[in-house]
């Protein structure tokens, strides 16, 4: 079992280093289950993926498990999506992610650990389709 300080140091060594790429196909059935789950009946989603679907294709954040020695739970601080090319059903999307920054600071009820990560998604033609930046928080 590593300490919280060691976990932070370990995650720091990964800043800017891409984790293993993951590739997945945008399947019609998966998109249908996703839009049913979010309750969005727009017929457009029979051809195209809705704006947040990419998070369902690959883990949102990579190699954050080591941070679980810190605090008791995860919070999602925020997400920022940039879109470059529409994601269509049948596309084969490759996700590559890395840690951008990690730091801890005092919060109102104890210390919080912030991990900023970025994931880039590209399609089967190698076009960048979207970039996601997220803030994962341990409290």
């Amino acid at each position, binding site marked *: 079992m590593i300490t919280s300080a060691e976990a932070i140091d370990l995650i720091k060594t990964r800043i800017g280093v891409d984790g293993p790429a993951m590739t997945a196909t945008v399947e019609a059935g998966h998109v249908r289950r996703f839009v049913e789950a979010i309750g*969005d009946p727009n017929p457009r989603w029979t051809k195209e993926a809705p*704006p947040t679907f990419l998070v369902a294709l690959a883990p949102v954040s990579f190699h954050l498990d080591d941070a679980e020695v810190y605090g008791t739970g995860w919070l999602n601080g925020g997400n920022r999506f940039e879109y470059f090319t*529409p994601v269509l059903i049948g596309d084969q999307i490759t996700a590559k992610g890395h840690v951008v920054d990690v730091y801890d600071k005092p919060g109102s009820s104890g210390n919080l650990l912030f991990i900023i990560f970025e994931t880039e998604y590209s399609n089967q033609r190698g076009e960048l389709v979207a970039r996601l930046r997220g803030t994962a928080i341990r409290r």
Partner: protein
Amino acid sequence: MNSESPNLTRRVANAKVGQELPELVKQPTTRQLVQYAGAQGDFYEIHYDQDYARSIGLPGVILHGLLKAAFLGQLITDWIGDEATLKTFEVSYRGIDVPAEPYRCRGKVTRIDGKNVELEVWGEDESGKRTTLGTAAVELR
């Protein structure tokens, strides 16, 4: 109904700064949280295990931040239709939301610069507190 846009097919092009988007009210349920957990592949227990959620100081199971983002995404894509393309979408989670309470998605136009339209979007809990804050940029086609 959006009375300021009589021509619904041109509602983004005809939008004015300060104009509000048609509100979208969601009624999330525990069933929906399980459906979403499966569809996204996020099996963090705070979204379906009441005992676990309470054991770490939550009032019970809570909505996924990304489910709230998906609701706000729908608010935007319903409004822009085929008229514009979503370029950026950012959300910041400022509070928890629980199932069986309405989650109101709202937004307004903050800036128009040629083909680029910027929006402020937010999600409100039952008391009117803004638990999710966000922005989006769309571009007219």
